[in-house]
C-alpha cells in the first residue's frame, strides 16, 4: 500500500517545558517518512491555532509529560476545534500527576474533539495511527504522490 508523507504539527502544551519527548517524537515520525514541524515546548493555544492556518498540517500531535497534560490538552483541543481546525488531533504522554491513565480524563478529551489519546510511552499506537492516516486517501483535492 502506498503511504503518503503526512504534514504533522508537533507541540508541547501551554505549561509544559519538557522537550526530550518532542525531540524523540520528531525523529520518530520523520523516520516514518512524515514531514514534522516542531513548535517546541510551552505552546499557548493561540499559537497552536495560528500554526494550523498555513501551511495546514494533516495531523496535530500534542505531547505532554508535566502532569498538566489533561487540563492543557483539553484547552488546546477545544481551542483548535472552536477555531474550525478539522484535522485529526491526538494527545499523549503523562497526562495527570498520578502516574496512571485516567479513563474519565481520556473520555473528556475525546468528547472535546481529540481524535485519539495515547498513554505515556505508547508510541506503537501512535505509529499505527499515523500509518492508517497515511494510508487513507488525502482528504483534499487529488495530488501527485511521491
Amino acid at each position: 500500500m502506498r503511504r503518503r508523507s503526512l504534514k504533522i504539527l508537533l507541540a508541547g502544551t501551554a505549561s509544559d517545558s519538557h522537550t526530550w519527548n518532542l525531540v524523540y517524537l520528531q525523529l520518530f515520525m520523520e523516520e516514518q517518512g512524515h514531514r514534522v514541524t516542531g513548535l517546541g515546548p510551552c505552546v499557548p493555544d493561540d499559537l497552536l491555532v495560528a500554526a494550523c492556518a498555513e501551511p495546514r498540517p494533516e495531523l496535530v500531535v500534542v505531547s505532554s509529560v508535566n502532569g498538566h497534560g489533561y487540563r492543557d490538552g483539553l484547552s488546546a483541543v477545544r481551542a483548535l476545534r472552536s477555531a474550525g481546525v478539522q484535522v485529526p488531533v491526538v494527545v499523549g504522554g503523562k497526562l495527570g500527576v498520578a502516574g496512571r491513565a485516567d479513563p474519565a480524563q481520556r473520555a473528556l478529551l475525546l468528547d472535546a474533539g481529540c481524535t485519539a489519546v495515547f498513554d505515556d510511552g505508547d508510541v506503537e499506537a501512535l505509529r499505527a495511527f499515523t500509518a492508517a492516516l497515511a494510508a487513507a486517501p488525502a482528504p483534499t483535492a487529488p495530488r501527485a504522490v511521491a
Partner: protein
Amino acid sequence: MSSAGALLAPPADRRDGDLRPGHRSAGPGVPGPASFGGFVARAAAAGRLVVQPRMGFADPDRMRAGLAGTRSVAAATVGTLTIDSYTRVGDHAAARAALAEGVPLNGYPIAAHPAERTRAMLDGILGPSFPVQVRHGSSRPEAIVRALAAAGLDATEGGPVSYCLPYGRTPLAESVTNWARACELLATLVPDPGVPHVESFGGCMLGQLCPPGLLVALSLLEGLFFTRHGIRSVSLSYAQQTDPVQDTEAVRALHRLAAEFLPPETDRHVVLYTYMGVFPRTEHGARRLLEGSARLAVHAGAQRLIVKTAAEAHRIPTVRENVRALRTAAASAERAARREQPPLTKPWSAETADSEVYREARAFVEAVLELGTDLGRALRTAFARGVLDVPYCLHPDNAGRSRSFVDSGGRLRWAETGAMPVVPYLAPGGARTPLTSDGLLAALHGVAARYDAPVTD
C-alpha cells in the same frame, strides 16, 4: 564511632544552631546566620552535605507537611517550595482556577495563594536552622520573586539562560532583562539581615546529554550575572551525568572557576543534582543512582545535593518518598565523608589540576566574556553566534548545530560543535552515524538501564 563519624552524626537537637560558624569567604558577602548561604556554609564547615528535596504541592497544608517532613530528617536538610507550572509560565489565572476547581497542580502556586497564607504555612518551620528555597523554572520570575519576598523568603534559583532556552519560548533577550530585574528586585526586597541567595540552574540544562564543559560554563556565567545584579550569595549547580570521573572533574572545575571569576567577597557554594534524566524504574536502581550522587557530591566537594526519589520515573513523589530519599542520600554522604580527607571545605581552587572539563568550560567562559562587559548582552551574542549552543535544545534563540553522544567509556562528548570554541570528539577510527530515534532513546535511557540491571558481584 569514628571521629569522622562523630563529626557527621547529628546533634541531639541539631536545629539549635549547633553547626559551628565559619566560612572561607570574608567581607560583605559573609552570609548571616539566618541565610540560606550561611546555613550551607556552616554545614560544610561541620563536614556535612546539605540534602534537599524537590517538592511542591498546591495545598498549603500538604506543603507544610512536606516541609515538616524534610525538617524532621536527622541530617542537614533545607526545604523546597517547588512552584507549579502555571505560575512558572505566568498564567496566574490558570493557577487560581485550578485551585478553585480542585485540579491537582504540580507545585505550590506561590503567587496565587495570599502572602499571609504562605507565611502561616511556613510559620514555626522556616528559620535559621531550616532555610527554604523557592524553585520554579520561570523566565518571567518577577511575580514569584515578589511573592517569595512577601512571604519572608530570600532564596531562589534560575538564570537568564537556564530558565529560558531549554524550557520555554520566551526570547533570550527578554529573559536576560527579566532576570537582571529579578535579581535587583530580590536584593531590594529582602530586609536585613537577610542575604538573598540565587542558585544558577545552568548546570542542569536539558537534564541530560549536555557535555559537562558547557554546563559548568553556563552555571559560572549565570552566577557571575547574579553578582553583577546585586546578589552577594550564589550557588553554582551541576547535574550528575553519565560518568563519575567526568562528573568529579565538573564539580571541581566549578569551584576553580568560581574562585577565578566570581568577586572574592561573594558567598558561594556548589550544588549537585542527582541525575536529572530518565530515572531508573526499579527501586534498587533508583536507590543506587541516588547513593552514587551523594558519594559524588562528597568526593568531588559539592556542599548541597538535590535528591530524586524512586518514584521519579513514574509520577510526582509523595512526602514520605522524599523523606526516604533524603535519609538515603544523607546516609550515603555520611559513609562517603568518613572516607574523604579532608572534608568539604578543602580549597579546590588551589588543588584542582587541569581537567578536560575545566579546559572546555574555561574556553566557553572566556569566549563569552570577550564579547563585551555587559554579561547579559554577551550571553545573547554568544547564543546568536552559536558560540554557546545547547545540544537538542529546541528554542529559536539556540543555534541548534551542536550534538553530543556518550562514548564507549561512558563520558559525554561533543559529536558536533558548530561555532563553539571547542572541538568535536573523534573516536579512534570511528565514523559518526546519524542519530536515530532509537539511538536517542538508547542514549536517554542508558543510565537508567545501567542502574536497573541486576547487581552482579
